[in-house]
C-alpha cells in the first residue's frame, strides 16, 4: 500500500543488496548467488495474523553453476540497473517495454517476455518492494465492473474524476486501471450488499443484461480468468473499506478453484504480497461439484490434465479444509466438470431468477 511505499533510497538500497550478494560471493571465490523463497505450494504457509497464505521459510539459492541460472543472475543485474535508472529519471515502463529494451543488454537479454516478468517478480520478492516501487507497469488488462459504486479516479491530467460504476458507464462497465492504490483510485460511496466476482465474460454480460446488479444490489466484477493483481487489489479494497462480502461465481473445474484461492488466500506466484491482494472473507458461491448433480447440469468429462490438477490441489495447503477436500474428491469421483453457461440449459433467466438467488440465500443474502 502506498502508505507503506518505500522511498527511492530504500528501493535502490534493497536492489543493491541483490548485487552485493553476488559480488560478496565472488570476492570469496564462490559462484555468485541470489537467494529466493521457494515459490511452490510446498512453501506457502497460512499467516494467522494476516489471514492469508505467505511464503514459508524454505529458500532456494540460485547460483551461477549452470548456464541457465547464471543468465538469470545477469538479467537480474540488468533489470536492477534499468530500474535504478528509471527511478533516477522519474520514468516508468511496462514489463513489455522492458522486454524490448533488453534487446540492447547483450548476454543479459530476455528470451521471452515471461522471463522478464519472472525476474521482476523475483526482485519484488527478494527486495520486499512492489513493482510499483520499481516503476514497472504490468501489461495486464484490468477487469470490468458494474454496480452502484462511486469512485474517483485521477486521470492523466491529474484531475480527480468521479464515476458511478452503474450510471456513468456503458454496458461494458468501468475498466479498472492497473494501479488501484489510493493515489489513483478513491472509494467514495456505494449502495450494495455484496461484491460478486465472475470468471467468464459471457456470464458477466448475462448478469448485466438481466440487470442482476440492481436486482441483487451488488457490484459485478469480471475476473477475466486468473485475475490480474489490480483486480484482486480492488476487490480487497472495496471489501475491507466497505465491509462487503465477496462471492466468487466461477466454472466448476480445477482452474476455477485456483482462481478462487488466489482471491481468497493469495496466489502462489504472488504470495510475497498476499496481504495486499487476498480477501480472506471471500466465498466460493458456485458452481460447485454438487451443483452439477443438484441442477442436473450438462457436463464434460475431466481430462487427464484436470485430474492431475485436482490431485495437486488435494495437497495444496490452501485447499486443506474439509469442505474443499470434499468438493475436490466429489469431482474426482464423478469425473465431471461444468461451465457457468451450462445453466442456460434451463433458459437465459434461470441463472438470475433461480440459481443465484438459491445459492445466495445459503449465505443469507436474499434478493
Amino acid at each position, binding site marked *: 500500500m502506498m502508505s507503506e511505499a518505500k522511498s527511492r533510497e530504500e528501493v535502490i538500497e534493497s536492489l543493491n543488496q541483490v548485487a*552485493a550478494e553476488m559480488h560478496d560471493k565472488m570476492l570469496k571465490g*564462490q*559462484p555468485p548467488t541470489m537467494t529466493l523463497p521457494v515459490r511452490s505450494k510446498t512453501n506457502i504457509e497460512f499467516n494467522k495474523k494476516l489471514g492469508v497464505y505467505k511464503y514459508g521459510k524454505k529458500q532456494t539459492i540460485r547460483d551461477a553453476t549452470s548456464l541457465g541460472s547464471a*543468465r538469470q543472475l545477469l538479467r537480474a543485474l540488468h533489470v536492477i540497473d534499468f530500474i535504478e535508472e528509471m527511478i533516477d529519471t522519474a520514468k516508468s515502463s511496462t514489463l513489455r517495454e522492458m522486454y524490448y529494451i533488453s534487446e540492447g543488454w547483450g548476454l543479459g537479454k530476455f528470451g521471452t517476455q515471461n522471463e522478464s516478468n519472472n525476474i521482476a517478480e523475483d526482485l519484488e520478492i527478494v527486495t520486499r518492494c512492489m513493482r510499483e516501487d520499481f516503476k514497472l507497469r504490468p501489461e495486464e488488462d484490468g477487469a470490468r465492473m458494474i454496480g452502484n459504486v462511486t469512485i474517483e479516479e485521477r486521470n492523466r491530467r491529474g484531475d480527480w474524476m468521479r464515476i458511478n460504476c452503474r450510471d456513468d458507464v456503458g454496458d461494458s462497465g468501468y475498466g479498472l486501471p492497473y494501479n488501484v492504490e489510493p493515489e489513483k483510485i478513491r472509494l467514495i460511496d456505494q449502495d450494495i450488499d455484496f461484491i460478486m466476482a465472475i470468471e467468464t465474460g459471457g456470464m458477466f454480460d448475462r448478469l448485466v443484461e438481466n440487470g442482476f446488479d440492481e436486482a441483487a444490489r451488488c457490484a459485478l466484477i469480471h475476473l477475466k480468468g486468473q485475475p490480474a493483481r489490480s483486480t484482486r487489489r480492488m476487490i480487497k479494497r472495496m471489501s475491507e473499506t466497505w465491509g462487503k462480502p465477496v462471492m466468487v461465481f466461477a466454472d466448476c473445474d480445477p482452474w476455477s478453484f485456483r482462481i478462487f484461492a488466489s482471491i481468497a488466500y493469495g496466489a502462489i506466484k504472488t504470495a510475497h504480497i498476499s496481504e495486499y491482494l487476498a480477501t480472506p472473507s471471500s466465498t466460493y458461491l458456485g458452481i460447485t461439484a454438487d451443483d452439477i448433480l443438484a441442477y442436473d447440469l450438462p457436463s464434460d468429462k475431466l481430462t487427464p490434465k484436470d485430474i492431475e490438477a485436482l490431485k495437486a490441489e488435494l495437497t495444496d495447503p490452501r485447499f486443506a479444509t474439509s469442505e474443499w477436500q470434499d468438493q475436490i474428491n466429489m469431482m474426482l469421483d464423478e469425473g465431471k466438470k461444468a461451465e457457468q453457461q451450462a445453466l442456460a440449459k434451463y433458459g437465459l433467466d434461470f441463472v438470475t431468477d433461480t440459481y443465484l438467488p438459491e445459492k445466495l440465500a445459503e449465505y443469507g443474502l436474499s434478493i
Partner: protein
Amino acid sequence: MKQASISEFFEKNKHFLGYDTLQRSIITAVKEAVDNSLDACEEHRILPDITIELRRVPNKKDRIIMVSQDNGPGIPSKSIEKVFGSLLFGSRFHTIRQTRGQQGIGITGVVMYSQLTTGKTTRVTSKITKEATALKMDIGLDTKKNAALVSNRERTHDFLDYNGIPVEHGLKVEAPMKAKFQRGRKSVGQYLRMTSIVNPHATIRYRAIDDNGEIIEEFVAERVTDRLPRPVRSIKPHPHGLEIGALNRLLRDSTERRMSLFLRHTFSGVPMRAMKETLAHAEVDPATTPNEVSPEEAQRILNAFNTVRLMAPPTDCLSPIEDLLIKKGLSKSVDSAFVATVTRPPNVSLGNPFQVEVGLIFGREDVPADGAVDVLRFANRVPLMYQQGGCLLTKAIESVSWKGYGLEQPGGKGVPKGAATILVHLASTNVQFTSEAKEAVADNEEVFNEIRLALQEVGRHLKNHRKKSAQKAKAQEKFELVNEILPAISTKASSLLGRDEPDLAPVITRIMNAVFCEDEVTWDKEAKVHRCRIKIHNYTARPRAYSILAQYPETDTATFVENELGGRREVKGIWCWKLDTIPPGEAGNIEFSIQGLEHNDWNATEVFFRGSGDIIGASKIDEEILEQIRTEEEIATKKALEESNMALDDAMNHDVDNSGGLDAEELQKAMMGPIGERLEHSDAEEAIAQHDVDDSGTLDRKELLDATQSDTSRQSGLGEWGDE
C-alpha cells in the same frame, strides 16, 4: 542338360533365378546388367560410369524397357553373341575367388526373360576402343540350340553417353520386359543405392520414366573415390571344407601323374611336409596316379586332411571395401549425424577365406526414430534384397545386445530400433547361401562371430559418440558460462555497487570443478594434411596428469607428419601421448598432423585417457578392450610369421642341389608348392637378380623372405596369387 529344355529350365527355376515376380524381375535384370558392368570395368581398371533407365511403355500393362549403359571396355564383335546368347550353367569349379556373379545366370537370363515375356529381342550396342564405330544388333535366343539369333546388325556412329558425347568404349543394353515398377525397400532405386554404397568407386545414374514421359524417380550417386577395388584373385581350393564328391571329381579329372604332385599342385595350403604326412596317414602311395585312387583311399585322404597340420589359404585374395570407403559411401547416400565402420581382418572358415565389414549410421533425420533400423546386407559387394529374416547377417545383428550401445531393442533381442542403418558386408571366395535363390547367407559360426565382433565395435563407437555429444553440449555451456556470463555478472555487479571487480579465477575453478577435453580435426587444403588438436583444460583445484589416447585412421598410406609430443602407437588406430602435469586453471595441448588421407577421410577423433577422475569430452580407456585388440594383433602377427616360416621351409626343401639357396629353376618349383602358383622362368630370374644380396646366384632363406615381401616382386607374381 538337354538343349531343348533351356527355356523350360528357366521357366521351372525362375524363382531362384530371380524372375518369380514382376517386381523382382526388374531388379534382377538391373542387377545382371550392373554386375556385368562393374566386373568388366574392374577387370579393365576403368572407373565405372553406369546409367540405368527404366521406361514404362505406353498402352501396355506392366511393360518396361530396361536400358543400361556403361563406360566399360565394350565387347568385341565376335564375343557379343556368346555373352548374350547362351546360358552358361554350372560353376567354374577350379576358380575359387570372390566374385559378384555368384547369383543369377547372367545377362543372357535378361535376354531370355525379355523374349519369354514380350516376344521381343534385346538391343545391344557395343563400342570397343580400337574400332571406329559401335556395333548395334538385336539379339534373341534360339532356345532349342542354346544360341543367339541376331538381327538388324549394323555399325553406327550414333552411340552417345549421358552427356551426349560419342562413346569411346562402352556397352548399352535395351531389354523390354514384363515387369512392375515400384519404390521402397525392394526396388531398383534401393538396389542401386545399396550398390553404390559398396562400390564407392562407381558413379551410378538412375532414372525411371513414366509412360507419359514424366520422370518418376531419379538420382545420381557420384563416386567418392578414384581408387578401384583391389583386383580379386583366384586361389586353389583348400582341403578344409572339401567334400568327398569334389575330391573324387578332382582326382578323376587330374592330369598329374603322381599323388604327391596332385596334392601339391591342386590345393592351396599343402606344403611338402603336409603332403607327405597326409599320404602316410591315408596309407596312399605317393606314386599312385590320381585317377587310380579308390573311393576308400579318397575318403582316407579326406580324413587325413583334418589331422595333418595344413597352412591356411591365402586371404589377400579378398577385396574388402575398406572402412573409410564404406564410410564415404554411406555418408553420401544418407544424411546422418554419425557413421562408424569396421573392416575385420580376413579369416578362414572351412578352407574358405572370408572377411567381414560393417557400418553403422546413426541420427538419420529422414526416418522415424521408433521403427526398426534399416538393415543393408551385402555378399561380395552385391546387395541382398530378400529373405532378410533367415539370413546369417541379420541373425548376427539380432544377437548383439544393442541396449548397451544406446539403441532400443525391445525384449533385449532382435533387430534394434532407431533412426539408424546397419550395414553388413561379407566378402568370401565361397559365400554359402541358404538356398539356390542366394538371398540369405547360411549359418556359419566363424562368420557369425566375426560379424558380432565388428558390430560390437561399431556399437562401442556409437556409445562413445553419444556420450561425447552429450558431454560436449554440457561443456559448451560451461565454457559459455565462465567465459562470457560470469565476467558480465562481475562487471555489472561491480559497476552497480561502485566496487572493484573480483578475481574470477577461483570462482571459475569452483564452477567448472572438472577437467574438459576439446578436440577437433581439420583439413589443411594447402598442406594436404589432416590436423588434429586436443586440448585438456584443468578447471579443478589440483594439478592433473594424464596419458591421452586418440583414435586416428591407421591405413597403409596415413603417416604422422607433425607430432611434437611423440608418443607411441598403442594398438591399431590408437596413438598414446603422455601429457605433462597440468596445473589448476591451465590446459595441456596435443597437436599432430596426418598425411596420406583424402579430404573427408577423417572428420573427428575419439579421445581416451588414462588417469584418475573424469575428463568431460573424453572416455577412460577400457584396458580390457585394448588388451583384447592387442591379443588379436599378436595372434595375427604370430600366425603370419608361422605361415611365412612354413612357406619358407617348404620352399627351401626345393634346394635339391643343397647349395643353401634356390636357383631360378628351384624357385619356380618352389612356387608351385604350397601356394600352387605358376611362376614364369623369366620372373624367377628377375626375382633372383633383384634380391640376391650376396651375389651367390641363388636366393637363400633370408633373401627369399625379402623377395616374397617386396612390392616389386608382388607385381611379378612372386609371393602373390595370380589369376589362373
